[in-house]
């Protein structure tokens, strides 16, 4: 009324909120000098005490990377990256431990509380010495016992290189070879650590595997590498990331995730990504260039990607499925939120190779502020993939009138018995919807949270229960602004 806000005044105010957690550098480092050359790679490999074959792989990848060009096709803009100005190895030593939660930034605690993170977890995340150490150790021990009982391997990638070299040799690079793309080559050359997970034949992993529970999970570094192998008839649900704010001073993140599913195996991979997106003016923030790919190698295997992306200044990420086995299924469910100056170019690739293969892509983009949100997807059905089906749905929701939403679908069908469907919509949160909520007593911020969560429901429903509740809160918080 009299406050004279323009039509988009409120939306603008609400969506121009800032990521509320600045940077802290409280980790002592054991560092390599800046830059990248073969010596640095030898340094990394020797620091990790790796076998020769691993060093050889790293060097091969590096030599290949040197011949490659940085990809420029994504709908994102950023200043050129000086790859010689990056420190490629920094072993995290111990975090400076705080005595109690009282020493932690109250705003950070406030966020933890809003997200409903338990007190114990808050302490771990904030780097507080957990007084109930015994508790947390025992949780981990119980966890490890359960996995051991089923012969499930779940450890850091470095440990796997030492303890399960035969498995790493057999599967590493099978889904994402280092020749795949620029960042995949870079990652293979310099990867710091990550996770390895192996589910034996006919085992249903009884718990959701989360990096949070993995010993040494606290510091995974900027070039992470994850490998999940699901043997015949096995099942695993894997959670990556966490809704809690992730701070990191490394600007460039280039991770690789590989999944391999054998006959009748099923892998559900869920991600919540909340890296630092940069400030309100677009300064700083993480560049997140990730290659995620799953091979549905066996008959009737299934890989399902679910992601909630709210963080990072730039996201470049296309979780994909190669449907090699007959009757195999690939799924991709995504919610990507961009605010302020964030840029996201994300989507999926579904490559149908086997007969009767099925894939589903549900992508929900939400753009606010001055951000840009692009969906880029490829559906390729090969000649041999008879009777295959794909259904893609890409929806974009715009908040305000200074943001952008873009859709780049690529569809290639090599036979006549397959069916590909693509649907796309673009909508705006209308002033009418907002006013309707407000007239019921719901303030603007809560109303936006409500509307956005309603819009993303189809995807959020695919997340494991606990994760879904946190993700809902995260969506609301991400779009939270200065309106009190």
């Amino acid at each position, binding site marked *: *009324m*009299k*406050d*004279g*806000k323009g*039509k988009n*005044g*409120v939306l603008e105010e609400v969506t121009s909120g800032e990521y509320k957690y600045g940077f802290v550098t409280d980790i002592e480092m054991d560092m390599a000098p800046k830059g990248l050359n073969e010596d640095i790679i030898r340094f990394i490999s020797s620091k990790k005490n790796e076998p020769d074959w691993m060093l050889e792989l790293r060097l091969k990848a590096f030599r290949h990377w040197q011949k490659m060009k940085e990809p420029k096709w994504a709908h994102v803009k950023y200043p050129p990256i000086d790859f010689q100005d990056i420190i490629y190895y920094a072993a995290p030593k111990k975090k400076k431990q705080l005595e109690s939660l009282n020493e932690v930034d109250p705003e950070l605690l406030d966020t933890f509380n809003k997200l409903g993170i338990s007190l114990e977890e808050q302490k771990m995340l904030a780097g507080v010495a957990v007084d109930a150490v015994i508790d947390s150790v025992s949780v981990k021990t119980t966890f490890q016992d359960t996995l051991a009982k089923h012969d499930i391997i779940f450890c850091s990638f470095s440990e796997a290189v030492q303890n399960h070299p035969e498995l790493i040799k057999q599967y590493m690079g099978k889904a994402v070879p280092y020749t795949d793309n620029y960042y995949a080559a870079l990652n293979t050359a310099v990867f710091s650590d990550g996770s390895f997970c192996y589910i034996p034949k006919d085992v249903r992993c009884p718990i959701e595997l989360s990096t949070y529970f993995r010993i040494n999970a606290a510091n995974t570094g900027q070039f992470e590498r994850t490998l999940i192998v699901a043997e015949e008839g096995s099942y695993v649900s894997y959670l990556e990331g966490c809704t809690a704010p992730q701070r990191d001073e490394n600007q460039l993140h280039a991770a690789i995730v590989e999944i391999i599913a054998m006959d009748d195996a099923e892998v559900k991979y869920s991600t919540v990504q909340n890296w630092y997106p940069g400030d309100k003016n677009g300064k700083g923030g993480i560049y997140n260039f990730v290659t995620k790919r799953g091979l549905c190698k066996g008959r009737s295997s299934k890989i399902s990607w679910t992601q909630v992306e709210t963080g990072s200044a730039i996201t470049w990420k296309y979780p994909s499925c190669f449907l090699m086995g007959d009757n195999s299924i690939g799924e991709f469910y995504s919610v990507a939120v961009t605010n302020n100056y964030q840029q996201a170019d994300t989507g999926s690739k579904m490559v149908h190779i086997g007969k009767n293969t099925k894939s589903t892509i549900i992508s929900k983009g939400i753009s606010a502020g001055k951000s840009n949100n692009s969906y880029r997807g490829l559906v390729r059905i090969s000649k041999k993939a008879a009777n295959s089906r794909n259904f893609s749905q890409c929806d974009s929701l715009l908040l305000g009138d200074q943001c952008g939403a873009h859709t780049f679908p690529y569809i290639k069908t090599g036979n006549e018995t397959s069916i590909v469907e693509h649907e796309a919509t673009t909508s705006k949160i*209308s*002033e*009418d*919807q907002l*006013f*309707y*909520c*407000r*007239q*019921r*007593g*719901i*303030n*603007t911020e*809560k109303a936006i949270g*409500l*509307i956005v*969560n*309603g*819009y*993303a*429901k*189809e995807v959020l429903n695919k997340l494991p229960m606990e994760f879904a509740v946190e993700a809902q809160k995260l969506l609301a918080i991400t779009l939270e602004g200065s309106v009190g």
Partner: protein
Amino acid sequence: MLLNIKDLHVSINGKEILKGFNLGVNKGEVHAIMGPNGTGKSTLAAAITGREGYEITQGEIEYKGKDIEDLSPDERANEGIFLSFQYPVEIPGVSMTNFMRTAINAQREYRGEESIPAGEFLKKMEEKKNLVDIHSKLTKRSVNEGFSGGEKKKNEIFQMAMLEPMLAILDETDSGLDIDALKVVARGVNALRSDENAFVIITHYQRLLDYIEPDFVHVMWDGRIVKSGGKRLALELEEKGYDWVKELY
């Protein structure tokens, strides 16, 4: 006086719609505001509920003895002002149940009360659904999504019953309703009438007033009230049509 509107002038994009509107409403009263299209009836509802873009250039709206100009739409709602929308909007993916719980808890938070316990909430939902003949499946669906015109209006009255406002404004709630739905809406309103609340019913036709008996009827023309009276006035209008009002002006 619960609502006291004094010499209200309201403009949209510089165009004056309300031109010196006066209205006093006490608790326990039902006021009907009638008039042809384009006389500012819906603008009145928007001004009272604080919709953006409606600029008060003169006069004031007093509610519970205070000028409410500085209160946001949600604050006004939480102070007990409810609007049954002429065109309820759809909110995809948000279930009625979730929406209602969020609204009730917002109201409670505003009053410094605890969130509503799940059991109590569900009991209340059941009770109020019966009042307006809403089926369970409707509350499981997304807010107004795929609702028929009649269902949307019933849903507005259902929300009113849930939120128990002090001042309820019904903006053309009867438009597009068949006689059965109209009766249901009226039954809802009549059940909620008490000495502690008041209703302002904006309508084009007197049809609804056959079922909801108003204490006062006001006729609007060109941004202000040109005639006030009792229930009879509505019947008179029905008989003589609105041209008769124009002559009064």
